[in-house]
């Protein structure tokens, strides 16, 4: 029962990922696409965590941690680029 619920949750998250890519492709502004990418990072984290619980393995949590940390840096860098045209100044 529990695993079924987990599978359902994963299906919903994957659906969210599909919507993310739709939003990414549609735009129209760069900021919209950037938001979509960031949401994609968050959804990936969720997917990994749920999959880790489903597969009863801790290995996936670290990848999730890394996505959380590095995805943030990536998003920040693009934001900085949009705002200032230069990320390190």
């Amino acid at each position, binding site marked *: 029962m529990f695993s079924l619920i987990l599978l359902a949750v*994963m*299906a919903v998250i*994957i659906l969210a*990922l*599909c919507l993310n*890519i739709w939003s*990414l*492709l549609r735009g129209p502004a*760069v900021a919209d*696409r*950037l938001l979509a*990418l960031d949401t*994609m*990072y968050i959804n*990936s984290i969720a*997917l*990994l965590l749920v*999959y880790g619980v489903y597969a009863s393995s801790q*290995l*996936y949590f*670290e*990848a999730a*941690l*890394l*996505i959380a*940390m*590095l*995805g*943030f*840096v*990536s998003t*920040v*860098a*693009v934001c*900085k*680029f*949009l*705002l*200032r*045209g*230069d*990320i*390190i*100044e």
Partner: protein
Amino acid sequence: MALLLPWILSIPLFSIVILLLFRQLSRNQQTLIALLAPIAGLLLLAPMIPDLLQGAVFQQQWQWLPVLGLQWTFRLDALALLFSFLIFGIGLLVIFYARYYLSASDPMPRFYASLLLFMLAMLGIVLSGNVLQLWMFWELTSISSFLLISYWSHRSDARKGARLALTVTAAGGLALLVGLILLGQVAGSYQLDVILSKGPQIIADAQYPLILVLILLGAFTKSAQFPFHFWLPNAMAAPTPVSAYLHSATMVKAGIFLLIRLYPAIAGTDLWFSLVSLAGLLTLLTGAYFALFQHDIKGLLAYSTISHLGLITLLLGLDTDLATVAAIFHIINHAVFKASLFMAAGIIDHETGSRDMRKINGLWHFMPVTASLAMVAAASMAGVPLLNGFLSKEMFFSQTLHQSVLGALSWLLPLLATLAAVFSVAYSARFIHDVFFNGKPIGLDKIPHEPPRYMRVPMEVLVALCIGVGVFPQWLVGDILLAASTAALQQTPPAYSLALWHGLNLPLLMSVVAFVAGIVLYINRKELFLFQAGFQSTLAIHRFEGQVQRLVQRCRQFSQWAEPGRLQWYIAAMLWATVLLAGYPLLQLNSLQGERGLLPTDWFSAVLVVIMVLAAMATVIWQRQRLLALIMISVVGLMLSLLFIRFSAPDLALTQLAVEVATAVLLMLALYFLPHRSPKQSAHATLLRDLILAGSCAIVVGSLAYLMLTHQADSVSSYFLANAKSGGGGTNVVNVILVDFRGFDTFGEITVLGIAALGIYKLLTGIPRFKPSADADGRSWALDAHPLLLRVVSQGLLPLALLVSVYLFFRGHNLPGGGFVAGLVTAVALIMQYIAHGVDWVKPRLNLQFSALVASGILIAWLTGAFSWLFGKPFLTSWFDYFDIPLLGQIELASAIAFDLGVYLTVVGSTLLILANLGKLTTRHKPEHRGQI
């Protein structure tokens, strides 16, 4: 005593190292260190002299590459002793002389180091007991003489002369190598002893003519024999001490030494006879003739050297034992008087500022002592009695009388020898008369005077030897000449007498004729000069330089064709090569499908793949809007990481994520230097061409991937899987492979990474930059460069990220992680600080030398590897053990951790070196727009 032989060679090396390490020593100290080598060498030789004169041969050898017949063999016999004496003795005097010759602005250590290197190379030739080893030292003389001739590298004539000398002698050296290899094959060994004992067998071999011609090519180019003599006059651009050493006693004698050394093995045939004597005769005559017309003193001496070398070669070519004795005797005499004459030329050049004999006249009044010394040496060169040159010339004359080289025309040879002697007297007379008498100096920059006292000492020693040998030949050189001749011929030479007076005979008459005719010729030289001026001659150096320039031009054209400097072209070439090389074998296969079946697809993965494909296509479609393309490719990276995790490759996923972010930051920094939109669509033909290339790549790579995945190949991975824990002490096989099993590869990779980072850092200087004041849509930039929220969050992120990277680092050996990922995480976290706070804020807080970080990383990795040497194990042997520590429990310590630390530091240093410096670059050149809208 043979044990001392390698020491003789290593002492110059020792002096070279000291000279190059301690460049700030005073000139006198440097001279002393340089002098140490020949003095020590002579002292080492001294105790062996009595045995050697009795015909002993000292030999010592080590195995080097026995499979190739290559052994380190040092062999000292009387012939080698004689040459070692010349090399050390004249080297000693030249080093002493150079101390006064070189001006304060000439770098002394470089000069002495090159000279000693040359000395070492010459000794190597002389002391080699293996012909391949001899050849290596032979090439070393070519290279070190190149360094010496081009010592004044700011002068164009020095560079050209050095290039010409190197080209000619090195080309000859290559011919020699082939000749020696063939010789060794025929003789069955490369050891000199064996070759010398197999003379008849070598001569009888069908390959003998080829061997002889190749070896002669090597010897003739080195000893400036006609028609290869042209490099020697151009080598006169060298500093005079170099000429005194290389072109009197050593370098040019190397070729002759080789002929004498191999004499028992390859001489004694008609071919030897005609080739060697003909080359010698032509050289003797052309050298003597052209020497008379040189206006440069050193030019005169150079052509005279060529002529005397020709004389020695001719003697060897006459192919009688007695002629060989005469040749060896003349080698000694020529080295002594020619070295002193070069030194005189150097003194004159030094004190008058010119070497042109049309300007420097009447120096007798300004430097009587030098003039007397030079005149004695020149008289010896002319063959005046009571001097050493006379004795060997007499022997030469008498040898020309007792031969039948030219059959019925053999009477021609004494005649030609006398003719050469006539010119020899004439140019010697010119050297004496034109320089020291003949009126007053014309148009000199300074008033000539005697040189410093000690600058004359080497000349005095040599001139004393000229006279000493001339008067007491038997007493001074009789023993060594006999022993050296015996060693050269491998048998006792026929009886001869070294005496001043042999009675009234034909050779004496030839000398007298040559002397009188020479003086007459000199007096009437005006006519001869006019005659010679009628020839339009292009100098060899100009023709050679023309060829070199043309060759350089060709190479440049080729490299411009092969390297147009367009990235597209390179990538296209690489991809086409891949398509062809990888595609061709695919055509040979019947089916892609291997023995492994396909796994069932799950819908989650399929959706991820679809998202990835969509993002990849969007990247291509939006490639001209660079930021958009960057965002889309981030999606590809993210999906790829998720797929890696799905298919049980967490290591790859972690690395992929970290690399992804570092790359994105790098690309955004690079975008700063690019316009927002790239140029318009390419032409349709170009588009089609690129589509075909991309399509072919996709087909080939896709098929290959399918092929690999469906085949069950026996690979090394099963070995790694089985041995990771027992052999490397870790359960994370990927990491154990990286830091242990294939640690040497990783070491190479981090070295390359460090070099690449340094290269990029260097390339970053001088990039043109331009910063628009608004973004692509015309909005002006935001005012706040470092938003507060971002600053606070990123500061909070740093310790977290460092913690994660430490965790990943230590866990790497057993579970996913390792130095590489940890390094990237640390680097990204630090870069985050640069983004949030700016370069000016980070710099005082993170005072790290990134290049030093890279260097220390590589060093730590190397030390970890080298540490195993202490235990007599090969490089990078790993070690691990488990310890029980109270409270902490069982802990594993592995040498791999230290190695991984090196990897970690290199990665952090390299990444920051690139990213932080790129960031600094944009900061430094930002236009002043702050505070404006």
